[in-house]
């Protein structure tokens, strides 16, 4: 049980093995409100797995992960969860409805416009470019309010303007007292102190 209200998540001695290989062992860290945790490490060091463990998608690990009572999660993984046969609007309102949130169509259109997608309003997502689909998936960061964001390589496939936009959203989220865990191979362009968690491959 987490006693301090400023801590969103505390992980102690997390061990994970996959395919007879230890990805990480005795990993301990915590995530506080207004904090970025940058998961770093070479390919195959288990960054995505750790993120999936935090999201609750991967349960085959040892150790303890505690959460603040009223925490909510947004998980944006490698896969965009953008269905090609639907328009951006339909995709976003579906993701929102999965979270039990109903948002007015105009508000979604505004979020899409912020992400530079106003011209693609009536096109199907399979006609969009990789970067545009990434923008569609990131739109939910603007529309859903949750205290913890788990982002897997959020800057990949984004152009400069998209990256700047994402950074602004993250900064606002941190200012509002949210927590952020992200993997990224590049330095994170967010004007905020960044805590780095280095994952070393162990053999």
């Amino acid at each position, binding site marked *: 049980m987490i006693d301090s209200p400023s801590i969103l998540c505390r992980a102690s001695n997390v061990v994970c093995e996959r395919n007879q290989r230890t990805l990480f062992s005795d990993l301990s860290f915590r995530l506080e409100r207004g904090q970025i945790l940058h998961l770093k490490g070479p390919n195959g060091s288990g960054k995505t797995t750790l993120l*999936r463990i935090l*999201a*609750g*998608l*991967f*349960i*085959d690990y040892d150790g303890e992960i505690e959460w603040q009572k009223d925490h909510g*999660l947004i*998980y944006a*993984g*490698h*896969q*965009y*969860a*953008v*269905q*090609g*046969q*639907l328009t951006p609007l*339909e995709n976003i*309102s*579906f*993701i929102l*409805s*999965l*979270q*039990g949130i109903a948002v007015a169509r105009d508000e979604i259109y505004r979020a899409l416009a912020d992400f530079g997608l106003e011209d693609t309003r009536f096109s*199907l997502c399979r006609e969009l470019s990789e970067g545009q689909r990434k923008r569609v998936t990131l739109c939910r960061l603007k529309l859903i309010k949750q205290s913890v964001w788990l982002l897997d390589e959020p800057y990949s496939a984004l152009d400069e303007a998209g990256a700047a936009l994402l950074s602004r959203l993250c900064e606002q989220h941190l200012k509002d007292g949210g927590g952020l865990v992200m993997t990224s191979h590049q330095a994170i362009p967010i004007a905020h102190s960044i805590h780095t968690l280095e994952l070393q491959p162990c053999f």
Partner: protein
Amino acid sequence: MFLSVLNRELRIAARSPGEWLQPLCFLLIVMTLFPLGIGPSPELLAMLAPALIWITALMAVLLSVDRLFRDDFEDGTLEQLVLSSGPVWLNSLAKVGAHWLFTGLPIVCLSPFLCIMMNLSSQWMPKIALSLLLGTPILSLLAALGGALTVGLRQGSALLPVIIMPLMIPVLILATQAIASPASGHAYFLWLGALLSFSLTFLPLAIAASLKVAVSR
């Protein structure tokens, strides 16, 4: 939430007609080939017809189910479905419902036409249609369970019929018996209905559990 999943599935299906027309075309083609293969004996054809219609319908449902969860698995929607705030079984049920609306229901609607093709007199039509109406939702649910179990596997589509076919056999037996038995067919229809309510109650839970396993690979 149930409705929004259903709505999404129906939209996707409406925009990719090839996906759901394929099993129906398969059904029609096979049913056209039977009279040609069996030969010009109307009596023999009429005798075999209920079983042939049912077996072909079963194959058509199997054929259609491979993609049911695969697209969502590959594009990450399944992860979001599992992480959603609502119960996963309800969302799975919505997906199965949409699948039935685009495969089972058309088969039911086509069944009078199939009866004509197989030289069955019109008194058979309601029985066959009713057996399909009660039976195809069970087939959809079972096939969805197979789809959910194999979605995470690379060679899953080869495994699917092997897993699911044995589970479909009771449905086939009950349905063909219900059609074949003259007066006491009622009991078989009741059994079929019981099987349907049983499947509707428990299979969504099994599908949800399988999807969770598939996602947390």
